[in-house]
């Protein structure tokens, strides 16, 4: 297997690592400007986050939802669908999981309850992705806008539900009925990490298999890379688009269920973990490669947990870690641009389109988003 050893396979990782390094340097500059010693701060981050069993346990617990969410986001992004609505789908899924779980907890064996709650969570996320999915497929509405807006709807709908219809009547704060600790997901033997992490790893592996070994994964990749080629090849482009969006919504819902069943035990109004943004950083750093999600998810979780642990002794706000994530995405965008400029594709394309359109090169003409639906309709009945 010379292929596995060829440098090009891991070359994309260098871009990500460079972006992370650049973000850490920039973050260090910010720290220095605030009068903190960056080296000391990063030292604490590493020693607490990686050097203590508490830090490692918390990191692994945090990893579970990130893995699930980002695996789902990866499915949609590889299919060329921008699901910005992860957070809303997760909230709806979490609420449904919390309600369903609490409703049957104690009346059925725990594994059955977990399964049902997880399915409820997935159904919730899927439902929330269904609306933008239909709008996109039927009328060509841009899913970036609709999924984003559905986040706000989710935030308010869940908060209303938890204040009224599904509120636990026995307590004052707006929350669903508590699933007691002994009914939540058990720990992996010998650790303090609940089995949600295993679910996350399984989901990542399943997504990997999806893209490597199944027809539908192959088609999703084609749609994501070149929609026109997918139409040309007779693939059911609209259906695939919908599937990608629904799958990522369902996975976001599953991640919500994971947090309810593994950590929280109930859904509280105003709870919004905001994994969506981290998931974007994660999927891009992993270069849309599902297995690479695992180390990067660990790294980002470590940053968050280590950041929290570093915050108190050093007086650095926890927002600092969010800023680091943002910087990583920015640096990644720059690094990816540099990479693309140096890529052989760019050249290949230039040479290729040259002669074909000789004398009348691809015009300076403005692309026509208005006509896109027309082209889409004309393009292919699925």
């Amino acid at each position, binding site marked *: 297997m010379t292929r596995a050893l060829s440098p090009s396979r891991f070359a994309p990782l260098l871009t990500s690592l460079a972006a992370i390094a650049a973000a850490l340097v920039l973050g260090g500059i910010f720290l220095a400007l605030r009068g903190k010693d960056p080296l000391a701060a990063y030292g604490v981050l590493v020693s607490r986050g990686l050097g203590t069993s508490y830090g490692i346990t918390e990191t692994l617990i945090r990893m579970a939802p990130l893995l699930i969410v980002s695996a789902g986001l990866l499915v949609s992004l590889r299919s060329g669908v921008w699901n910005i609505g992860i957070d809303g789908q997760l909230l709806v899924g979490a609420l449904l999981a919390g309600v369903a779980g609490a409703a049957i907890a104690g009346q059925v064996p725990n594994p059955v309850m977990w399964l049902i709650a997880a399915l409820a969570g997935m159904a919730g996320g899927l439902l929330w992705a269904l609306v933008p999915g239909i709008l996109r497929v039927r009328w060509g509405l841009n899913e970036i806008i609709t999924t984003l807006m559905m986040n706000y709807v989710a935030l308010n709908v869940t908060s209303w539900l938890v204040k009224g219809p599904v509120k636990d009547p026995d307590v004052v704060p707006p929350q669903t009925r508590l699933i007691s600790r002994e009914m939540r997901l058990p720990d992996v033997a010998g650790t303090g990490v609940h089995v949600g992490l295993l679910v996350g790893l399984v989901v990542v592996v399943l997504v990997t298999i999806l893209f490597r070994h199944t*027809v539908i994964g192959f088609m999703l990749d*084609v749609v994501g890379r070149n929609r026109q080629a997918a139409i040309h090849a007779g693939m059911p482009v609209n259906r695939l688009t919908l599937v990608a969006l629904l799958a990522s919504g369902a996975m976001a819902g599953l991640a919500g269920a994971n947090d309810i069943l593994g950590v929280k035990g109930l859904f509280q109004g105003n709870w919004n973990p905001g994994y969506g943004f981290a998931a974007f950083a994660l999927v891009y750093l992993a270069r849309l490669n599902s297995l690479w999600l695992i180390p990067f998810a660990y790294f980002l979780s470590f940053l968050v947990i280590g950041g929290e642990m570093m915050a108190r002794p050093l007086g650095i706000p926890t927002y600092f870690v969010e800023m680091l994530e943002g910087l990583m995405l920015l640096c990644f965008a720059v690094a990816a641009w540099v990479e693309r400029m140096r890529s052989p594709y760019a050249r290949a394309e230039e040479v*290729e389109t040259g*002669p074909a359109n000789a004398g009348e090169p691809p*015009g300076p003409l403005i692309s026509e988003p208005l006509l896109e639906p027309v082209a889409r309709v004309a393009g292919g009945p699925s």
Partner: protein
Amino acid sequence: MAQALGQPNSPVVEMRDITKRFGPVLANDRVSLDLWPGEIHAVLGENGAGKTTLMNVLAGMYQPDSGTIRIAGEPVRLDSPAAALRRGIGAVYQHFTLVPNLSILENVALGAEGGFVLDLAPAEAKVASMLADFGLDVSPRTEIRHLALGQRQRVEIIKVLLRGGRVLLLDEPTSVLTPGEVQSLLDLLRRLRDQGVAVVLITHKLGEALAVSDRVTILRAGRNAGDLGPDVMSGADRESVRARIIAQMFGSSPAAETDDSSMDHLPSVIPTPPRVIPTKEESRRPSRRRPEEPRFLADARHDRGAPAAARDEPTSETLLSLRNISTLGDRGAPALHDLSLDLLRGEVFGIAGVDGNGQKELGEVIAGQRPVTSGRVLLEGADITNRGVAAATRLGIGYVTDDRLHEGSVAESSVADNVALKSIGRKPFSNGFWLNRRAMEQQARRLIAEFDVKTPGPHTPIGMLSGGNIQKLLLARELALEPKVLVCNKPTTGLDLRTTQFVIRSLREQANAGNVVVLIASELDELIEISDRIGVMYSGQLVAVMPRAEADPETLGHLMLGGARRPRKASA
């Protein structure tokens, strides 16, 4: 025609020795063009002759590599469309640049000179009067998206004129219009000319150019190939002017200053491909192939006795029938109009036409990639209308697109993935759910060997391959599916001689095996060499179908430009 020669004695625009290169392609090679106020100046040429590039240079979109532009005698540098517009030069493109959900007024005001604050009130009256003047019965407050394409085009023109444009560049303005709209556009252009505007009309359509132009410049393969002044345009009779223009567009020498009106005396017509450097073109193109045809062709004829051509009635040998097909193009304008065609077993049916006359759409309709708005597609008598690509592929229809990189293949995906692209859901590449990567790889290796594709291996991203090798793979992919009907759109564009020969031989063999090949091509020699019958498309219709024996480049070129069929039996 109105002489309209009351011009001042100096041109408003002088372009001298404009050269513009795109990578290996020399799009404009020392091209010169003068524009006079109060004239309609048609710029004619084949696809790739460099018309649009020249216009983009004048419109400030591109910077020429060398050459000078003078406006009213003064040398200028037009480094942006805004700069060009400040000098009074405005362009209207095939793809309109209006914002659909802004009003006419806002679009016209958008980007106009002036401060940061947009004050629409003063412009409104002016826009309203121009709209009325231009025969548009709409309010300036109407949003662009409510307008038809022809109306939008007028708004574009108004936009240019209101910003002080005195030179109006129109790139294929009639390609999106209905015949009625074309007439009124041409009337409008005449009026603008009479008001002293210099109108540049870039077009493929000779009829329109002849109808309105005071002056014609012909480009060929990036160079000036002819220039007919007002004396010629208004004087000589239509038919001889037309003959001269065709000769200059397609002919081997731009000489032929004869007044002979007979088409038969035209110089031999050899379309020249865009000059790619380094070039082997000279050796590549045999002049008129006729007497000794390639062996495989001779064999083919012999095998089948009489050529399958010259049959007008559908017979039992009809494999695919198109009945009264109409469809829309990508931009929603009609692309095919009531087109009927029967394709016979064992024939290569060649389709000639200037780009944009519906050939691509015809190919897509056959391939199931473009739904028809009316009409039927019958494969061996079974109705397959609007069944989609997947069904068409399954039933034995293959399609090699002309857009190798953006439609035919997924550049980042491996050769093996691309080879399996069209039949991924079937054996051997999958069982419908699980992929069989090994079968994909084997098939890729087989096709690479069989078609002599230069690639490091089946796992190389296809985008890394050269155009010719991608083309071979796309053809191989279709042929491997053993299609009964194979549509190829410009399969030999940009290929070297050996690959071209290979592609042509493959297509011929495909037909010899009793299948149908539909070959859309712009190189007439090639088309005549390989086809049994040739159809000419113009404005979404098959204007003529003829057996190969009756086809020659002059006749085809004449028909491609919208000329009437000369008295032979018309078919289709």
